[in-house]
């Protein structure tokens, strides 16, 4: 009888261990739209990181003389300017590539702020439940009920003169302000995940070996919630880019001569009858960025959702 522990020896062949992430990635690459999104996102990141070296001209370089024959902005595909220039002779393509940097930074910084605020609040509310849950979720409701744009404008105005307000030409403040209005979805998501996960048996098993609460939440529960969190981050990025563009359009954020996509659209507004390319191309850049993140997010959701496993 004691030899029974040997029974399983035979049938296990050598087989490469396939992790959860590898499985999920396998499902992701089968989704064509998600791959298109992934490639565009990678391109976006590339332009954001290396834009200054890739751009045909420095973004702030003016060539007023060159615009003289056109009595204003140079149209696309003229004089070596693929997307044309603005009324000061600044190359539009270079300016969009520089704007990509701002949009990419806003995407990252806002999501980091969302993670830093949203996950702890959601985790505390979900894990402790009861009164803690009630207080935190009502606080969340209050933030949710406050008009986002107004809140961001108040924050940026209030802190403009501090060291924080001046960091990165005031952009950091804008990014963080957007983040502070965007964590609600994340907190609610994490709370919901923990509420259902904390009833699972492996949590009970972890308690039974003496893991403390903090360890259960951080090592046992949050990793199980990471799929939906990644999806939420990816799908939250378009919102952040759009929020920044909206603020820039209203004149908050990037200061001249730098331009984000929003402020490019704002600048181009004056020329929309004669030179629509000044509005069209920055808007196209915004649209492509939003769509690519949305495609990628949808693909990630399908790939990471265990309920869809096996369906293709």
């Amino acid at each position, binding site marked *: *009888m*004691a030899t*029974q*522990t*040997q*029974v*399983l*020896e035979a049938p*296990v062949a050598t087989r490469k*261990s*396939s*992790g*959860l992430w590898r499985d999920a990635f396998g499902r992701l690459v089968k989704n064509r739209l998600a791959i298109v999104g992934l490639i565009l996102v990678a391109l976006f990141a590339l332009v954001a990181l290396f834009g200054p070296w890739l751009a045909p001209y420095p973004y702030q370089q003016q060539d007023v003389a060159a615009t003289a024959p056109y009595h204003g902005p140079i149209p696309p595909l003229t004089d070596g300017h693929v997307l044309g220039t603005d009324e000061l002779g600044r190359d539009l393509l270079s300016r969009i590539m520089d704007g990509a940097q701002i949009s990419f930074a806003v995407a990252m910084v806002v999501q980091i702020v969302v993670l830093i605020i949203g996950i702890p609040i959601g985790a505390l509310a979900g894990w402790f439940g009861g009164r803690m849950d009630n207080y935190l979720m009502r606080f969340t409701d209050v933030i949710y009920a406050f008009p986002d744009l107004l809140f961001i404008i108040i924050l940026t105005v209030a802190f403009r003169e501090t060291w924080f307000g001046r960091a990165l030409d005031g952009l950091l403040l804008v990014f963080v302000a957007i983040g502070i209005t965007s964590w609600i979805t994340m907190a609610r998501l994490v709370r919901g995940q923990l509420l259902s996960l904390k009833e*699972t*048996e*492996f949590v*009970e*098993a*972890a*308690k*039974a*070996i*003496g*893991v*403390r609460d903090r360890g259960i939440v951080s*090592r*046992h529960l949050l*990793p*199980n919630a*990471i799929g939906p969190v990644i999806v939420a981050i990816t799908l939250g990025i378009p919102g952040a880019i759009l929020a920044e563009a909206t603020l820039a359009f209203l004149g908050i954020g990037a200061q001249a001569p730098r331009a984000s996509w929003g402020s490019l659209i704002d600048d181009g507004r004056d020329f929309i009858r004669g030179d629509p390319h000044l509005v069209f191309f920055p808007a196209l850049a915004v649209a492509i960025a939003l769509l690519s993140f949305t495609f990628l997010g949808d693909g990630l959701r399908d790939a990471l959702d265990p309920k869809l496993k096996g369906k293709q």
Partner: protein
Amino acid sequence: MTVTDDQDRAAGGPAVTELPEDITIATEEGRRLAEQLQDESSRHARKLLEVKNLSTHFFTSDGVVHAVDDISFELDYGETLGLVGESGCGKSVTALSLTRLVPNPPGRIVSGEIIFDGVNIMKLSGEEMRLLRGKRIGFIFQDPMTSLNPTLTVGYQIAESTRIHMGLSRKAADDRAAELLSKVGIPRARDRMSDYPHQFSGGMRQRVMIAIALACDPMLLLADEPTTALDVTIQAQILELIRSLSDEFGTAVILITHDLGIAAGMCNRVNVMYAGRIVETGSVDVIFENPRMPYAWGLLDSLPRLDEQKGARLRTIEGLPPDLINPGPECRFSPRCPYVRDICRTTEPELSPREEEGHLARCHGTEPGGWIQ
């Protein structure tokens, strides 16, 4: 005494284990437990476990459910005790109460004492309970498919409790985990440490659960229906594994099951539970050869037999277990008992001794001078 103690220490005698640093010891009982844990050679109590008048109630919107109602039992070092009874009779709640893991709310241990190795665990703080869980008391859960965390490797999950309780480094904990994994019969244990639970079959996952439960060499193993979710052939292997490892480590086992066959094969003693009460207790031979409680007869009678007539119906105990909200003063089995008399409907019998040593039953009819022989 002090001299020998000192000599012991000087000679590198009893190993002094490190306690987890993050646990604050607050109560008097906790300090006793900590001292005891640090001196591995000590055996402070005569019995490993003494449960006295334990009651665990669930406070629901319908009323108070008396899930475990005033039960008392003892367990020796290295002994295997079976807790048998049908669903909802309080077996699992008893086990959860022993580790104070009853979900609260709605559940709460309302009264009673649980003396584990001389320490009254009811007096420990919640923090101090973590000294015992996993260290002194291992727990095997019913369903291995859901009791392992799907996002953590098997190796990590086994190593986790040794890192908490034995203060092992990551490397040492991994070595220990690999050793345990091969001990529970997983081939190529080293390689499989980095696998995830979904890459293991049900039987192998239960082996992993056993490895986790035994990782810190506990004194008591609580096995809550460890084979219910497994098929019959795997069942036998898992039970054999629990038996051989508990023999090897000298671990006492409380085996919770509704399968009397398992209890008969594994246990030294059996507690039969019904409606939150222990209704009969005795050595396994006595319970199976000469049960003195009609419920135990019913349980034994309802086992399918090999010499059964083909097509014959399985025998059952008529009726349903009673509602555990506000149980009355009657014998709780009386509504289903074929031998019931008026006295059963008015007074609940005490758990009283029968002929054999250590055999107790809760039945008016089989008490000396009763009407059932």
